[in-house]
């Protein structure tokens, strides 16, 4: 069977886009099949993202544009997979693309059609808070930016066709089936929001002022229906008191949804913070059972929400909502910390809805012959979260389990990384690079400038007097040609521009149209195709920053447009051709750290044929996972690690250096040189490589002497010690009748103000194992929040079903361990139930994970930053979780932050995938615009 160097990515959300970009940049042809009319997914609906409060669309839009413009990415919108045949390496997929009733190639996205359409339909993008036309674009920054007709709503009046100046509308277009040949498939279909309508007690759909969190996201959004003013639906007033109810459609066994949706605690806090930022008078209250802030820097965000923004958190699950009939305010009943039941009135209630399997999940599973898990999500391998039950088909993001954006992006790259291994023999077989003519030598020519001014339908032409601007442009110095176009960006205008460049010997080009952020590279590509250096170009933004913002002052707008054109003309007169340097890439990588993450990354690269130097500071591979015996889901970690070490040791392209230390790293992306000292004999060596992956891991926190009497009594142990006993020395439990586990030891405190993410699961895992060995042992777990995110919630429930007792303690009143007359006691004080004393045989401290001090040394050598907790800091916490800001350097595993084995593995393959976007190239192009030092002026 012949392998095919192309990949089908189903779903164009942030996961699908990331996987596609990685693959397209690693030498594969990519098809994105997107069910709606634009890529972008749920992220495009969000106002801001946690924990950085970045504007969601602002960080997403450039990715959408890059994917939309990529030579080797073909986006099929309004499409779904009908049928798939074949096997890993060679699938044939039949894609059904529903008619847009419009020619995608002709539509310029100007929007005139929507303005004349008489039909009003519910705008799904705005979650029903506004209306749209029957012909519409999904959202203003949509990629591709094309309108489409919603045939179910369209009455067929034909007005849009008459209005469309690009002649794009064609009512006769029919659905079509497209058959493509691909080597692998990546599922990135995302999730569905839980619909709270059936939960009658919350009154959603009945009470105007009960909205879902996604609706609230649109209410907050500056591009949403209310322009970011927080308004409640019943009367258009600003809700002073807003209540957020957590776990709607999550952690609720009554409605058959047992799992935790993982993201709601954080997005709710973000929504509360942003609401407060938008309007000081808003007072948000969050009602939740636990606060699950178990990602990197999440707890700090919660603390800031409490301290800086005054967000109130109340631990309570609200079971019903009452509406006050005249004011439409809402009454909630809850129990205070002192056990008192009170009623409180709110102006708006936001239901923090959870994630459900995507509505296409069942059908997709049938079409692709893959398995779903007990919760209806895509079933995955116990250690490889991107591996579905079928070879050649991989998954990322919410389709396999609820998770946040960075984890989705990590898995997306990891899925791409896994495809890399499968298809490495056929890399670069289906991609194409544009053949370009030789660049014209213009060095001895005086400037001859061509100016192209865009009407943009009526977007510019309706305000700015374009003919006048053209006339004016023609009078400017060195302008030899000026013309106007209905749409300068349209395909036929590109041909026209090239012809005019030839005809008039134009050697500098100015386009006056929209923003360079989206269109500069298009025009640069055009003039390059005409033989001009792409830097001999400038774009005057006379739409976004002129006609659109001075709609009622046409004369002033025209004058401004003329100025903007003059500025651009003046600039291009001084431009010279710039050269993009090309540098060779050394097709080798170094991986720092030989734990699970490091080995996984090394194998991924080696299996694609890239030589790897794996540098480990200890005398054996495996890192911290050598201490782990089982996962929460009872998968045998030791067997897995053993195999991984064996494979790593035996791979001929992996060079393992033990007892190794890095002394220096120099060079730049594609061409690094590293010096190390390794082995007991302190041998020095150095090697050249193109990329670096940091996988140095983290450490278990060791309690200080006085902390819970640790070290003073051997009946007080840490969780990893208990695990060791449970799996290797269970006789030791013989005399144990009871044990008390204390959570958050060395986590979420002043010294380590973050959650270690894994300790809740570890405690529950060990508690369940203990019960399995001896059901008579009484176990009490003292905790602050139980953070069994995602499907781990099942084991929390299981533990409670098995009689394990969970008791919450307050941060300011931690439990005390006391030895009184040889007997071991744990004391707990709580305002609602008073003082409790547990006599116990064993105290188990759930200690957290901390970043090793040595991180700062390596950070200095690599010139990369650390966060406040000494973990390595990625380039962008949301969208570049596996990259450092320094090009060519990547990170994964617990070096980045706390993570479990499965997560570390995904991160490792992700980092490898990111690295392969470089290693797979023979040459790297550098940006033409570079700075240099004018030595005459430099004063040093």
């Amino acid at each position, binding site marked *: 069977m012949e392998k095919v160097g192309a990949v089908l990515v189903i779903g164009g959300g942030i996961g699908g886009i990331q996987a596609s970009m990685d693959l397209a940049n690693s030498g594969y042809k990519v098809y994105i099949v997107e069910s709606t009319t634009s890529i972008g997914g749920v992220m495009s609906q969000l106002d801001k993202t946690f924990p950085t409060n970045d504007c969601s669309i602002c960080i997403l839009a450039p990715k959408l544009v890059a994917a939309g413009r990529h030579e080797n990415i073909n986006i099929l919108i309004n499409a779904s997979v009908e049928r798939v045949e074949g096997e890993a390496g060679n699938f044939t997929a039949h894609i059904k693309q529903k008619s847009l009733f419009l020619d995608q190639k002709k539509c310029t996205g100007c929007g005139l059609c929507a303005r004349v359409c008489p039909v009003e339909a519910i705008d799904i993008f705005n979650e029903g808070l506004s*209306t749209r036309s029957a012909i519409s674009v999904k959202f203003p920054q949509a990629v591709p930016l094309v309108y489409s007709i919603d045939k179910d709503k369209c009455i067929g009046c034909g007005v849009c066709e008459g209005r469309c100046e690009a002649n794009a509308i064609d009512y006769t277009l029919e659905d079509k089936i497209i058959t493509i040949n691909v080597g692998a498939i990546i599922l990135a279909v995302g999730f569905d929001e839980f619909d709270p309508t059936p939960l009658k007690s919350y009154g959603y759909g009945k009470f105007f002022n009960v909205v879902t969190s996604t609706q609230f996201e649109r209410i907050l959004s500056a591009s949403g229906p209310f322009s970011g003013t927080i308004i409640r639906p019943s009367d258009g007033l600003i809700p002073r008191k807003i209540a957020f109810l957590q776990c709607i459609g999550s952690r609720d066994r009554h409605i058959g949804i047992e799992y935790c949706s993982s993201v709601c605690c954080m997005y709710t806090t973000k929504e509360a913070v942003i609401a407060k930022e938008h309007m000081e008078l808003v007072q948000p209250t969050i009602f939740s059972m636990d606060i699950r802030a178990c990602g990197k820097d999440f707890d700090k965000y919660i603390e800031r929400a409490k301290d800086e923004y005054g967000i109130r958190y109340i631990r309570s699950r609200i079971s019903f909502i009452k509406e006050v009939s005249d004011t439409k305010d809402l009454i909630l009943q809850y129990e205070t910390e002192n056990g008192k039941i009170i009623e409180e009135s709110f102006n708006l209630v936001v239901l923090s809805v959870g994630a459900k399997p995507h509505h296409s999940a069942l059908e997709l599973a049938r079409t692709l012959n893959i398995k779903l898990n007990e919760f209806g999500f895509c079933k995955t391998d116990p250690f490889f979260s991107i591996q579905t039950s079928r070879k050649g088909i991989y998954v990322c993001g919410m389709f396999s389990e609820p998770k946040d954006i960075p984890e989705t992006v990590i898995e997306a790259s990891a899925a791409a990384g896994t495809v890399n291994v499968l298809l490495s023999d056929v890399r670069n077989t289906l991609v194409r690079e544009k053949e370009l003519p030789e660049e014209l030598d213009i060095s001895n020519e005086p400037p001859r400038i061509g100016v192209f001014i865009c009407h943009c339908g009526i977007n510019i032409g309706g305000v700015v007097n374009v003919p006048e601007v053209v006339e004016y442009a023609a009078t400017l110095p060195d302008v030899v040609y000026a013309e106007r176009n209905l749409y300068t960006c349209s395909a036929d205008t590109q041909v026209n521009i090239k012809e005019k460049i030839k005809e008039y010997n134009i050697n500098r080009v100015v386009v006056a149209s929209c923003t360079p952020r989206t269109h500069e590279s298009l025009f640069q590509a055009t003039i390059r195709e005409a033989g001009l250096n792409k830097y001999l170009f400038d774009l005057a933004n006379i739409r976004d920053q002129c006609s659109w913002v001075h709609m*009622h002052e046409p004369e002033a707008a025209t004058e401004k447009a003329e100025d903007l054109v003059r500025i651009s003309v003046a600039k291009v007169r001084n431009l010279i051709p710039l050269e993009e340097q090309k540098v060779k890439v050394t097709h080798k990588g170094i991986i720092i750290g030989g734990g699970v993450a490091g080995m996984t990354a090394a194998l991924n690269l080696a299996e694609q044929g890239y030589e790897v130097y794996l540098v480990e500071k200890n005398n054996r591979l495996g890192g911290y996972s050598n201490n782990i015996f089982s996962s929460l889901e009872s998968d045998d970690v030791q067997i897995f690690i053993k195999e991984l070490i064996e494979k790593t040791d035996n791979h001929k392209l992996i060079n393992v250096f033990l007892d190794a230390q890095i002394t220096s790293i120099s060079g730049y992306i594609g061409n690094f040189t590293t010096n190390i000292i390794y082995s007991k004999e302190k041998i020095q060596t150095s090697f050249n490589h193109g990329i670096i992956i940091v996988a140095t891991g983290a450490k278990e926190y060791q309690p200080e002497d006085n902390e819970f009497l640790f070290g003073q009594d051997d009946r007080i142990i840490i969780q990893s010690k208990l695990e060791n006993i449970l799996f290797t020395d269970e006789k030791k439990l013989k005399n144990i009748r009871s044990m008390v586990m204390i959570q958050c030891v060395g986590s979420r405190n002043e010294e380590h103000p973050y959650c270690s993410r894994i300790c809740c699961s570890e405690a529950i895992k060990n508690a369940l194992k203990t019960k399995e060995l001896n059901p008579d042992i009484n176990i009490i777990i003292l905790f602050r929040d139980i953070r069994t995110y995602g499907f781990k919630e099942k084991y929390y429930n299981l533990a409670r079903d098995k009689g394990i007792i969970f008791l919450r303690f307050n941060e300011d009143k931690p439990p005390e361990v006391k030895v009184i007359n040889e007997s071991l006691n744990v004391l707990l004080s709580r305002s609602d139930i008073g003082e409790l004393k547990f006599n116990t045989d064993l105290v188990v401290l759930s200690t957290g994970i901390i970043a090793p001090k040595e991180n700062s040394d390596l950070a200095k050598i690599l010139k990369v930053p650390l966060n406040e907790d000494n973990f390595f800091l990625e380039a962008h916490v949301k969208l570049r979780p596996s990259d450092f800001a320094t090009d060519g350097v990547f990170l994964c595993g617990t070096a980045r932050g706390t993570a479990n084995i499965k997560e570390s593995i995904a991160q490792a393959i992700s980092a490898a995938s990111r690295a392969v976007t470089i290693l797979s190239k023979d040459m790297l192009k550098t940006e033409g615009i570079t700075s240099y030092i004018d030595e005459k002026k430099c004063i040093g």
Partner: protein
Amino acid sequence: MDYEPKILGFLCNWCSYAGADLAGVSRIQYAPNLRVIRVMCSGRIDPIFILEGFLKGIDGIMVLGCHLGDCHYINGNYEAEIKIGVLNKLLKLIGFSERLILDWVSASEGNRFAQVVNEFTEKIRDLGPSPIKDKKYKINITDELNVIKSALSDIRLRVFIGRKRSIITEGNVYGEVISEEEFDKILDQAIYDEYIRNKILLKIKNKSKSVPEISKEIRVEPNRVLEHIICLKSRGLVDFDKIIDIYPKFISIKEE
């Protein structure tokens, strides 16, 4: 005070106007209140003309065309029926619909012409003078008529009016025929919505108001008012003016 209704008639050249002439030739006597404007076809009558008439103080307006099926231009009178039908629905909302009739008079119906004129004149006489002439109601009724006028000037209702006949008879751009009932369901909602929206625009023309204030003035549920405001905002006709405490105030930015 004695009241003689002022009646305005739009008569089509080919049937009704000829019918009126026939009444003359036959010396059939009828009420002297009618003033006639001859048009080539009843389908030419833009509802705006009728509203202009009412705004100028006309007490009753008749649009007379050929009988259905007899139109000189084949289906102009069907178009008239649609146009006047939509106008009538809007006039009903302000209690003005009885002052307008659309009827058919052929070139051979001199008698019928006189009868239609007489009956309508009597009806308008019974109704009394147009409230626009009463100082007490003048501003209010002028506003209401202007609201309808702007609703009918806007492209949305005009598209519905302009395309209805072909869509319910010949079929739409996809070659599908939509039943009149189904079409009217969409159209009636649009008529009501556009009426309310234009009313809101008028209320916040010079002074910004909050949703509850508008709701009280136009007696529409506040949640519906908000929905209309959001729609008008997306059309670039309304904007936030200011926020006072918890009250966002909206203002019309529609160019007159």
